[in-house]
């Protein structure tokens, strides 16, 4: 028998979304309402397992009467508000945000980035060849995962997943300020000297591929990474009795990465070092 979690009944909030009367449960965000209505709003720093940080500002929408645009991911729908997701102002800001990000950061492994850049007619190259970029080298200081800072958009998701929202390890934080801010361990020490427990929950939430399995990083370097040739098999971790779901990503009969379904009630997408990285014995032939 499948257990269906019951929630307290919620009141519905009525508001106008792109000219349509919309009803969503109280407490829903504008983004929730957009998704329920089948609208595709770009998001980067929003994560289904995390409290929105609304740092990337790519999901901004126009709320009538407000001086500035609102982030759809964290602004709650309020009764009577009039929201337009596709106004020229909102589209303009999204376009600029995409241009600012793409001109400073490597978005080559960010899912859908290329598609959005095309859709919003963003031209990241118009800031000229001298536009400042992050210009960071990947940090490879352990056998399990790689931090490719050139791809980091500082969305804070890894910090939140490592810290109070999931893992409570607090191995990383944002250090520095402004354009020079970077996700960092204390004094930028290697991960091996930090509080990192290698749960890999930061990789799970990274929206740009800045954090990736060493196996994926190496295969991408070698040009052998091929997502279309991969199969995904969800199984149950055998290490302990918790019963975490693992999704094994397999390419050419080798496990190349391990994730966990975000809607799994046991893990919410999180694993520990054993579930995330402890698969080598399977491939010892």
């Amino acid at each position, binding site marked *: 028998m499948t257990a269906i979690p019951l929630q307290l009944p919620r009141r519905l909030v009525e508001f106008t979304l792109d000219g349509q009367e919309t009803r969503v449960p109280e407490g829903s965000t504008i983004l929730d309402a957009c998704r329920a209505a089948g609208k595709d709003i770009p998001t980067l720093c929003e994560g289904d397992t995390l409290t929105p940080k609304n740092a990337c500002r790519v999901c901004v929408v126009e709320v009538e009467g407000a001086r500035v645009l609102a982030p759809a991911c964290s602004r709650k729908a309020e009764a009577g508000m009039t929201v337009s997701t596709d106004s020229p102002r909102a589209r303009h800001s999204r376009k*600029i945000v995409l241009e600012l990000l793409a001109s400073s950061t490597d978005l080559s492994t960010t899912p859908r980035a290329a598609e959005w850049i095309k859709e919003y007619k963003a031209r990241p190259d118009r*800031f000229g060849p001298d536009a400042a970029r992050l210009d960071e080298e990947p940090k490879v200081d352990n056998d399990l995962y790689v931090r490719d800072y050139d791809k980091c958009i500082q969305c804070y998701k890894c910090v939140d997943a490592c810290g109070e929202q999931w893992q409570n390890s607090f191995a990383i934080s*944002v*250090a520095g300020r402004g354009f020079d*801010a970077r996700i960092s361990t*204390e004094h930028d020490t290697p991960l091996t*000297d930090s509080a990192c427990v290698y749960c890999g929950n930061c990789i799970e939430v990274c929206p740009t591929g800045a954090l990736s399995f060493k196996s994926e990083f190496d295969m991408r370097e070698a040009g052998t990474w091929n997502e279309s040739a991969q199969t995904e098999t969800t199984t149950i971790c055998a290490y302990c009795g918790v019963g975490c779901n693992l999704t094994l990503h397999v390419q050419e009969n080798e496990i190349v990465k391990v994730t966990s379904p975000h809607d799994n009630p046991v893990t919410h997408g999180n694993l520990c070092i054993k579930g995330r990285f402890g698969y080598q014995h399977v491939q010892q032939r």
Partner: protein
Amino acid sequence: MDLHFGDSEPTDEERAAVDALLGPPASAWEGADDRTDTDLRWARGGREARERRDLLLPGLHAVNDRIGWISEGALDYLCRRLTVPPAEAYGVATFYAMFAVKPRPAKVLHVCTDVACAAHGSTALRAALEDRLGAAGSAGGGVLWQPSPCLGLCERAPAALVVQAGVPSGATAATVNAGSARDGAEPAPPLAGARPAWPAGADPAGPVHGGARPVSRGRSDGTVTGPEPRETPARRYATAVVAPATAEALVLAAAEPGAAPAEPAAAMAVPQAGQPGLTLLARIGAVDPYSLDDYRAHGGYTALRRAFELGPAGVIREVTDAGLVGRGGAAFPTGRKWQATASQPARPHYLVCNADESEPGTFKDRVVMEGDPYSLVEAMTIAGYAVGARRGFLYLRGEYPRALRLLQHAIDQARARGLLGDDVLGQGYAFDIEIRRGAGAYICGEETALFNSIEGYRGEPRSKPPFPVEKGLFGRPTAENNVETLINVLPILTGGAQAYAAIGTGQSTGPKLFCVSGTVERPGIYELPFGATLGELLELAGPSPTMRAILLGGAAGGFVRPDELDIPLTFEGTRAAGTTLGSGVVLVLDDTVELPRILLRIAEFFRDESCGQCVPCRVGTVRQEEALHRIVDRTGAAAADDIALLREVGQAMKDASICGLGQTAWSAVESAIDRLGAYK
């Protein structure tokens, strides 16, 4: 939370600096040297330990003040004491411009390069310093000099601040001769309880150990001891403000900050001082800023008595009827803010005074705090009473050493005389004020960033809603007001709301302070009723006959032309004229300044001060600066493409940034292009 520490150990001096703030460690879990049997049986931690997180910023100050920088060992030790993850503490330490996490000389020379100082030769000053001390950022001769954002000394531009790390003067006990107000040999404030006092006049530049005074947090003051006296005289913590600065004076002050010439009295920044008809500035120059008796003799604490007669609701009613709106720039009705805070069922309520005055060109709060510190203490007490707060926090920017000394002294005096503490004026109302010192971050003037800063997190703005009146400091209902807003409450209560509302215009009531600087004959703080025009204000200050532009509201404000002097200086009047009053900055530039370079400096300021949280501001301010760099020597068609680019990026910064910093980062540049015809 399972904290992980590296192998670095603090030096004895670093340990002493932290222990002077927090007391000796209670157990090995907190970093004590010897592990006892009890330590093995009982671990202190959990919520109780984590609740001291707000002492992280004072702790970083303690180490940085003592050593000059924060080493791995010192940071680890502080983290152990406060149960803070080292990575987070590192993130906090690297957020503030006044802290360093790499070794640097004990003496740091901050040279202001912002607009007012640029109009008074800061470029030449920098060149002269490069000749004498080497390039900025290089640590030659035991002194590190670095360009700094506005130091809030615009009336005495160009300005510089010397900070010498060392042992706080409170290390040796002595009696304090309170009451004398010799500038430059100011008596140091005594700390609460049994904490060591500072010797009178022993340290001309004065000790600054802000935020180090715990109030009713369950810590025993009696356990706090200063470091052991040393056999050789240790280097003392000292600060020196040099303004107007010359390279010679700076090199001298950097050599011996303790012996630098005294700063002029605060009244020197008030050209109207002593004139009749002043309300907010009446006491500046007339009272001894150290003397509580003098303050009371000049009408001090009558407003608080009146507040107790009216009761909290009555005070809020008076403030609402008076039409007082916030003077920090946003012009939010103060009465409404207080009412909203007071009516929240969640407890406790907090009062926060925003004295992180960092908007380039603004120095009014400094002058008020230095010239009439008790008025702020009284006003905070009234505000706390009105909103039902028992604790008030005064967040003071780190670049104001004299204001810190004077306010700490004023708070201590007020507490000693029963005007703060468990039973204010015998009325059964308990209220106390803690000073928290900023450490060089413009963004911490944003109200929610300021909360994060006090709480020991990075000073990043929070998203609103929820608003501070509902969830503010420590997640509790909080009223946050600017210094000038708070001191306006005193005349409202003493003179009545009607009389106050009669000053100014219908929509902007009361007197307003203006910070006039740049190329005028008499720069300083001016008090005028709302409704005076820009021309009338400048007439008082003696404008340059060759005015090119006037910057209203600071770097986040906008430029107006010299032919727009009839703009009424009210919130509605400036809005109607398409500009802003902001924090009351009126900065005059004459035709000798190169406007594109001033704009570039403003863009650099925002790039440096962006917290980095949201993309439009973090990257947008960089792109804005790059574009302004490209067109610094171009005009007309050669600049048109970049101006179009600036407009697009500026619009997105204005629309999509989280907070006011990003939203206004483009406004001064925009106004220079549209109103002044820059780059034409």
